[in-house]
Each structure stands twice: as C-alpha cells, then as structure tokens.
C-alpha cells in the first residue's frame, strides 16, 4: 500500500522539478519580464500588506496581553512582556505564521489563476506561439514574492511590536518604559536576517508549489478548485517541514 503512494509522490516531485527547469530559463523578452515582475509584485506583495498588517497588530497585542497575564511571579521582571512579544514575533509569527496566511491568500490565487488558464487553453495558445508559458507565467511570480515577502515579514514584525505598545498604552498592564526595555533586552539582529531568509524560502515554496498545481490542472472548474485546495494543503505542509529544517540549520 505504501509503495504506490511513494511512487506517485516521486512522480509528483519529478514533474515539479521538470516544471522548475522550464521556469528557470532565460525569459524570451527581458522588457516583458520586467513589466510582468512589477505587475506580480503589486498583485502578490503589495496587495498583501493590509491583511498582514491587520493580523500582525492584533497578534502583537494579544501576545503582550497573554505574556502579561502569565508573568505573575514577582521574581520575573515585567519588562519580559516586551521581550516575549519581540521574540515571538521575530522568531515564528512574522515568518512562519504570515507565510501560512499567505499560502492561503496568494497560493489559492496563483493556483486558480494558472489552473483556469490551463483548462481554457490559454497556456496551450502561448505554447503554440512559441512562448515558454511556464517561464512567462511563473518566473515573475516566484521572483516577485521571494524578493518582496521578506519585507512583509519585516512589516509584520514592526506592526506586531506596535500592537503590543498600543495595548500596553491602552490597558496599562505594564509601563511603557518596561515594554521598551523588554524590546531592547538581549536583542540579536541575526534573528531578523534568519526570519527574512525563512520568509524568502517560504515564498518560493508558496509560489512554485501553487503554480505547479495550477499548471497541471485539468478538467473543469471543479478540478481547478480541487487543484487550488491541494496547492494550499501542500504549501502548508512543506512550509512546516522547511521551517523545521531552516531552524535547525540557521539558529
């Protein structure tokens, strides 16, 4: 029973790498590629700023509140609320959690967009003209999100800390100076680089895997929906595995 599953997984991996070989070739027209890159940066990156900011501000606030409620011991300084908010945001939330959210948002968008193009023969039309459709459609998406999304991670981190500051100011659970002391306590700039690197890797996973499922969609609109769902599930699982590996390697 395991062998057929393993075989189909291997086949899937093979198809993925064949597609990536097509994707990572020199674009037919560089000016067209740069234009597409800008379009995809706007579509996949800029349009995610609002959702990332909203989620991050609330999560930052909630982490600050929960840390404060759980630090009841008089032996632990209250500034650890700021410290815990910062560490949680930079180490996991702003990269891994935001990536999982983006997998849902841009992963489904990419898989359904490319899947619809596949079933309506738009991809075939490109191929017949002699255009490398995988390169034309997928490469700008991968580069746009791999380059732009680490800045989304940075944004999420800053906005999360702002959320913590906001809730501390509004509720007075600790003083603002305690919160800022905590933010500066034992700060390791390397964590930011680590988190941005993780986000770049996750963004590559999201765009390439979602594109793969969309590119190999067949049938009708229901099948495009199914491809989109499979893409999101696969992205989430791979992100978690990559997270584990990168954490072990980079920290």
């Amino acid at each position, binding site marked *: 029973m395991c062998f057929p599953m393993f075989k189909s997984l291997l086949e899937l991996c093979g198809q993925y790498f064949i597609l990536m070989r097509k994707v990572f070739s020199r674009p*037919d*027209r560089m000016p*067209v590629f740069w234009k597409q890159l800008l379009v995809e940066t706007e579509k996949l990156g800029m349009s995610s700023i609002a959702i990332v900011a909203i989620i991050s501000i609330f999560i930052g606030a909630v982490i600050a509140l929960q840390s404060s409620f759980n630090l009841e011991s008089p032996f632990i300084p209250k500034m650890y609320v700021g410290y815990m908010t910062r560490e949680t945001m930079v180490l996991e939330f702003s990269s891994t959690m935001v990536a999982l959210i983006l997998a849902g948002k841009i992963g489904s968008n990419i898989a359904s967009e490319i899947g*619809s*193009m596949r079933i*309506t*023969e*738009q991809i*075939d*039309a490109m*191929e*017949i*003209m*002699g*255009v490398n459709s995988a390169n034309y459609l997928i490469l700008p998406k991968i580069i746009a999100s791999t380059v732009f999304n680490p800045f989304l991670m940075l944004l999420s981190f800053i906005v999360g800390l702002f959320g913590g500051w906001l809730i501390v100011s509004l509720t007075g659970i600790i003083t603002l100076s305690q919160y800022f002391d905590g933010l500066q306590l034992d700060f390791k700039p390397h964590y930011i680089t680590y988190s941005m690197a993780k986000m770049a890797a996750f963004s590559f996973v999201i765009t390439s895997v979602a594109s793969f499922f969309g590119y190999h969609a067949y049938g009708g609109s229901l099948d495009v929906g199914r491809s989109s769902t499979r893409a999101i599930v696969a992205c989430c699982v791979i992100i978690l595995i990559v997270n584990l590996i990168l954490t072990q390697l980079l920290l």
Partner: protein
Amino acid sequence: MIRINHINKSFANTVVLHDISAEFEPGKTNLTIGASGSGKTVLLKTLVGLHEADSGEIWYDDTLFNRLPFDQKKNMRKRIGMLFQGAALFDFATVEENVMFPLTMFTDQSYAEKRERVDFCLKRVNLINAEKRYPAELSGGMQKRVGIARAIALNPSYLFCDEPNSGLDPNTAILIDNLIHEITQEYHITTIVNTHDMNSVMEIGDKVMFIHQGHKWWEGSSNDILRSDNQELNDFVFASSMTKQFRALSNK
C-alpha cells in the same frame, strides 16, 4: 503544405490515432470532420506539437517538424497560428493586448508599428472599436474574431482552427467560416479546420478528411460527400432526416 505520414498516437492504453497519412495544401481550406471523440482535436494538437506523436512524420513544407530540436521547433511555431474552440484569449489582456501579444514577444517593432498591425488585423476580421475591451466583455463570435486576428498577427504560413464555429448562431458561424476561407486564399496559408458542422463543410471545404474512431476513413471534396457510398461517412453527415432529403434531391 503540411504532409503527415503514418501518425499514431495513444494515451495510456487507449489508441486515439491509427496510422493517419494526409496532405494539406496551401491556399485551401482543409477540413477534418468526425464525431465527437473521433480524434480530430488530438490530431490537430499533434500537428502543432502540443502532443508528441508516438510514431510517424509531420512535414511542414520541407521541414520534419516533429523531429526538430526544441529551439528550432520554437522558431517554427512563430509561423503557426491557431484558433481554439473557446478562442483561448488571455483573460488578463484587452483585445488590443491579445492581438499585440505575439508581436511583443517575437518582433522588435515599435509600439506604433505594433498598433498599426493590430488595427489592420482587427479591421480584417471586421472588429472595430473593441480594442480596449476585455475578452469577458465580448460575445462568442467577437471572441472568435479576436482569436483569428491574434492568429494572423505574425503573418502565419499555417493556420489551425479547432471547431471555430461551435457555440455560435448560424449567421455568425457562416461569417467566421467565410473569414477563415478568405484569409486562407488571400495570404495563401495552409489551413486545417476541425469541425462537425455540415454547413462549414459545404460552404468552405476545399478538401475534407473524415476521421472515424481514430482512422482516416474517407477523403475528398465537399461535393464528393454527396455522392459517397461510405456508410460511416453517410451516417455521420446525413444524420438528420432533413439532410437525407437534401442528399436525395442533390443526387437527382
């Protein structure tokens, strides 16, 4: 001219095309007819290289197309235009951008030159004042016309049309058929059209090939069909009582 020799194609264990050989002449509208599932679309997609033939040869004039290396095949494709069953226009682009797409990808023309060519192609298919509209805002007939305009943008030597008038009303279907026929003669293109519309066969079919269960079953002109005694062809062409009466009258 396109010449195919002994083409075979199968998917998994299902053989779809059996040993098909044919010649398609330039300046003529070559029709491939057959019931749904007979293998017409697979043959067309094999001819343009979207499917690889299991065996056999596909010649575009003096070039053995299906044995060309990837880069040369890619160059060859610039001489091929194709109209898909659903037009396959790019959703993300306007009519103008759709027609301009092959020009942008494969020529060094300035925007003004490309614009001029787009205007010419759209005028040729009788589509005016639609440049800024998106495919979703067009009727089926208009989408097909944009598809034809895009297919002829690079002055192709070979034009392939997969059921160009499916889903269209009879008047629009005849307009599209005539347009394909005129363009074929005007630019001396080798055109292959897949259809199961008998009006198309009678209106524009210079040469007709009937495919039955993946085999080339019959070949001739549209006039020959009326006199053919091929049972399968007659069952397909004269399926309704009206067409049977028409045939009886023509034979008298």
